[in-house]
Structure formats: C-alpha cells, structure tokens
C-alpha cells in the first residue's frame, strides 16, 4: 500500500548563466533554499535522490563531488539520468522512497550547468549520445554532406521541429500560435525571479520578428541553455505531523511514467515504428495512469493548472491535449482566448516554463516545484489568482519517448 506523501519544502537556484558558482555550489543553493523553506534541520533528511543529464555540463559525474555540500555524507544518495526527463524521474524516485515506507523524509534535487560546456549541450552531451551511431553510419558510407545536414536539424531540437510540423497538420494551428505561446512564456518568466529569459510585455509580434532558424521554428521559439538547480523535500503523512509542519504543503496524489519506442532512428541506424512525433502515446498513458492513481476522473474539471515540459512552444499545445486538458487539436484556440494565461481559466506554465528557462536536469523538477508553489500559494508574483486544488507537473525527454506525470493536490488522497 502506498503511503501519503507531501512536499514540505521547495528550493530553486537562480537560473541563467551562472559563472559565479561551480556545479556543487549551484546544487547547494537549491538544496539549502528547500531545507530552509521546509523549516527542518539537515539531520531530519534521511535519503537523497539526485539527478542530472549526463555529460551536458562538462563533468561526467558531478554527483561524485558534492555530497558534503548538500549534507548527504553518511546517508543514502542515488543518481538518476533519463535525459531531458531526468528532473521528473528524480522527483518520482524521491516520492517512491517515501511512499514505499523506506524513509520518512527524502530530498530530491536535480540540476544542469550548461555554461561549463563550450557549446551548451552539444560538445560533451549530445555528441557522446550520437557518437556511436554516427560512427556506424560513416562505416556504411554516410558522406560529409549528410553529416552536415544532421547538424542542421539534429537531436531533440531537430526532432521537435518535425514534431511542430506534424502538430500543425494534426491541429490546424499556425506558426502565429507558436509565437503566442512563446510570448506568454517570456512574459510569465518576467514575473518569476528564478527564470532565465525574461521579457516583460512580450507580444506574439515581437517573437514573429525573430529569425527563422529552420521552418517552422523561429529563434524566438527556442528555449535557452540555462544553468540551474531545483529541489523538493518529501515527507510521509506521519513525518509531516512529527516535524510539526504547519504551513500549507502539497500532497502527491498520483505519479506515472511511461517509456515508448525511440523516435526516428534506434541503435545503429535501425528504423523504428514511431513516425508521428506529435502522437506522444507515452504522455497519454502516463496521464491516464497518474489520474487513475490520484482519483481524478475528469482532468478538464478537476485539474486547476499545469506545468508542462515544453522547451518549444508547439509542445505546450501538444502536451496540454495529450494530458487531457483540452480536446485534440483545440489547445491553440484556448491560447487565442487567453485560457492558459496566469489569470485564465486553465493557466499553463505560469512560471514561464521550460521555454523561458531550460537547465535540462533541473527542468523536470522545476515543474514539480512550480506546481507545488502554486498549491502552497507561494509563487509570489506569478501566483495564479484562482484556487488551486489539483495541479499537474509533467516532464519529457529521451529520444522523445520518456514522459513523467505527477498530480499534486492541496489535500492527501483518501483511501
């Protein structure tokens, strides 16, 4: 039987280009902020779940050098690495550890320090992911032109660009709707003191003026490569009472994660059966399962807001449909009507989301943090005005096939 688990504290490092700290200090910034927020002593924490995208920050195993910075010495500490999804997966791991009855108080933190790498993400991260496949393709006669073309639209950004075209065909939306979503992300980020790309009063027209990188994706649609860390502290229902936590907490009502077959090309250039990247079966199944576990029957009515992992604006539209907040192909109409704004009926990414701040490892965890802050009503300037009873935190990554969904609420699920 799963135990009820609450998020009793949240912490974030200031996200952006952080040349004033090293990785250990960046992580520590989020961890100590969370410990302070929870109002507990470091000794109260029984175990640590840590997560980081592998190799994107110039150090392959940064977790090996900072146990003492976060008070983990002499305690269990495990690292998670699931690509872009890692923040979501680490948040799940911390939850599992408390829900299972193994520990009562667990700290989960994940981070990224892109600026440590010469070309953010690319030099040490993407290349080591792609190196084997590229070597193999060269062996069977790939020429340099094809190699260069891959550089033109490769990796997650490349796949996302095809995905944007497929979502347009599926929903009937236009590039202008991507502009609207990106402008909302930058406007909302301007109200969030931890966010990276802030642009107060940014309009869709401002985004439309930015350079077309590769149709249908503009410069203004692309997320930044940020440095940052996000942290949550979980406690069992008993521990919440024992520690005397009196401030509002956010309860984890249900989680689910689903891995799909990799998109486009698998290991050693093998074909895969995923040829519509906008389909995202993994997100659909994760959502259904997480809602079932949370006792949510109608997500459109019962969920009040969501933090979606959307580095590119079409993904906010696509995932908000896959997660059941809008009917298929209808999300862009909701954006036109302002439904997803901070003061709208169904706010999405009031923090500015991943489109405005993307420290990859941190991003999935940051969705959990931001959803929890909305429930605790501690989001300050970007606090949504309406009541938040239930919120969804989503993460996405891998070769577009990993999805995690966490449903948070203002009260524990009664069993």
């Amino acid at each position, binding site marked *: 039987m799963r135990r009820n688990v609450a998020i009793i504290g949240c912490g974030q490092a200031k996200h952006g280009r952080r040349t004033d700290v090293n990785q250990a200090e960046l992580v520590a910034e989020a961890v100590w902020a969370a410990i302070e927020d929870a109002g507990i002593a470091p000794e109260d924490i029984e175990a640590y779940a840590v997560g980081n995208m592998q190799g994107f920050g110039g150090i392959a195993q940064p977790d090996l050098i900072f146990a003492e910075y976060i008070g983990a010495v002499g305690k269990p500490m495990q690292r998670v690495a699931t690509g872009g999804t890692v923040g979501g997966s680490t948040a799940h791991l911390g939850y599992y550890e408390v829900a299972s009855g193994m520990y009562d108080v667990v700290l989960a933190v994940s981070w990224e320090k892109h600026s440590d790498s010469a070309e953010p993400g690319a030099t040490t991260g993407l290349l080591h992911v792609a190196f084997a496949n590229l070597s193999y393709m060269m062996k069977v*006669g790939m020429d340099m032109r094809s190699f260069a073309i891959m550089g033109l639209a*490769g990796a997650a950004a490349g796949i996302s660009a095809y995905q944007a075209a497929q979502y347009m065909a599926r929903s009937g939306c236009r590039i202008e709707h991507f502009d609207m979503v990106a402008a909302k992300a930058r406007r909302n980020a301007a109200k969030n003191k931890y966010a990276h790309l802030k642009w107060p009063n940014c309009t869709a027209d401002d985004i439309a003026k930015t350079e077309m990188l590769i149709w249908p994706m503009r410069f203004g649609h692309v997320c930044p490569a940020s440095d940052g860390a996000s942290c949550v502290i979980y406690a069992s229902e008993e521990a919440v009472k024992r520690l005397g936590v009196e401030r509002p907490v956010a309860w984890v009502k249900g989680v689910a994660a689903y891995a799909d077959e990799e998109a486009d090309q698998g290991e050693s250039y093998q074909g895969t059966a995923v040829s519509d990247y906008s389909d995202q079966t993994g997100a659909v199944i994760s959502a259904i399962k997480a809602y079932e576990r949370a006792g949510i029957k109608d997500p459109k009515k019962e969920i009040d807001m969501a933090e979606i992992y959307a580095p590119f604006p079409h993904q906010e539209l696509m995932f908000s449909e896959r997660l059941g907040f809008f009917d298929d192909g209808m999300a862009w109409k909701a954006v036109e009507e302002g439904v997803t704004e901070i003061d709208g009926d169904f706010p999405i990414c009031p923090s500015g989301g991943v489109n405005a701040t993307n420290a990859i490892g941190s991003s999935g965890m940051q969705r959990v943090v931001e959803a929890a802050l909305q429930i605790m009503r501690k989001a300050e300037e970007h606090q949504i005005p309406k009541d938040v009873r239930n919120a969804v935190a989503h993460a996405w990554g891998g070769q577009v096939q990993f999805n995690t969904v966490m449903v948070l609420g203002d009260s524990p699920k009664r069993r």
Partner: protein
Amino acid sequence: MGLIKEKYEKTMQVEGEWNVGAYRYKAPEGYLDEFVRNFKDRKITGTLCRGCGRVYVPPREICARCFKEITEKVEVSQYGEVMAFLVSPPLEKGKVVIAGIDAVQAGFLKEGERVILAMVRFEGTSSSMILPLLNVKPEDVRLGMRVRAVWAEECKGALSDLLGVEPAFDVRFE
C-alpha cells in the same frame, strides 16, 4: 555559502583537451550490409516482422512492438509520403557548425542553398527516414505529398547513394 561565490566574482575557465584514444562501439554484425549493398542496384530493403506485419526501413533486428527477432528481408517501394518537413534559410558561413567544423566553409553544404529535409515513410513500411527533399521549391512542399527516391548517378553500395527524395508525378484534372 559556497567558497567560490564568496571569494571571487566568477568561476574561471580551465582549457583542456584529452584524446580518449580508441572508442569501441559494439554494433550488430552485418545487419545493415544487405540494406546498403542493395543500394548499388537502387533497391531499398526493409525487414518484415512476422509477429505484427510491420516493415522497418532502415531494417530493424528486433521488433520493438512484439519483441520478436526479425530475419525476413523485403524489398520496399521507391515511393513514399512526406510525414513532416523542415526548410532551412539560405545557408551562410558560421551557421552550421558541427563538432567544430563549419559545414559551409568546408564545402559540405553550399553557400546560399536552402535545404529541405523530409521525414519520409516509404509505401508499406511502418518507419520513417529523414532524407533531403530535392528538385522542388519550398513553397511547393506540403505535408503528405508523394515522393520517390533519387539515386546517385553511379551507385557504389553506400549510404550516400540515396541522395534523397523528389516529388512524384503530379496528376491533376485538366
């Protein structure tokens, strides 16, 4: 809190380079050989899963849907459908840098050219390949259009023999 933050305004960058020597990657022996060898005869070969009937191009060894080993090779159509496409702006020097190499400067891509990339599903297959879409203006490309394979003048049995795809014949009511 941290030492660096308190003592210094910013971190310093330490330049470093380390040749890792050999990197050994274990790839399946020979499964792409036939696929690539048949390019010499301008044929596209896929694998057919007996479990679910899916055809994979490029070939796949184990079907991810039924987890069955796939051994049967099949020739597939030269015609396909554009599942999605991207259009690059006219290329300039310094815009496409991959692994430190400027692709335009090095001559791999032409200055001023607009590359159209298509996600192509060949007829009867369940998978897709990313290929350049040739001999068409960007404004004439649409999602779902029918295309056919374009081969090099002289095919040697290498991945580079398949240059890309181009629009199939357009049949309209007159």
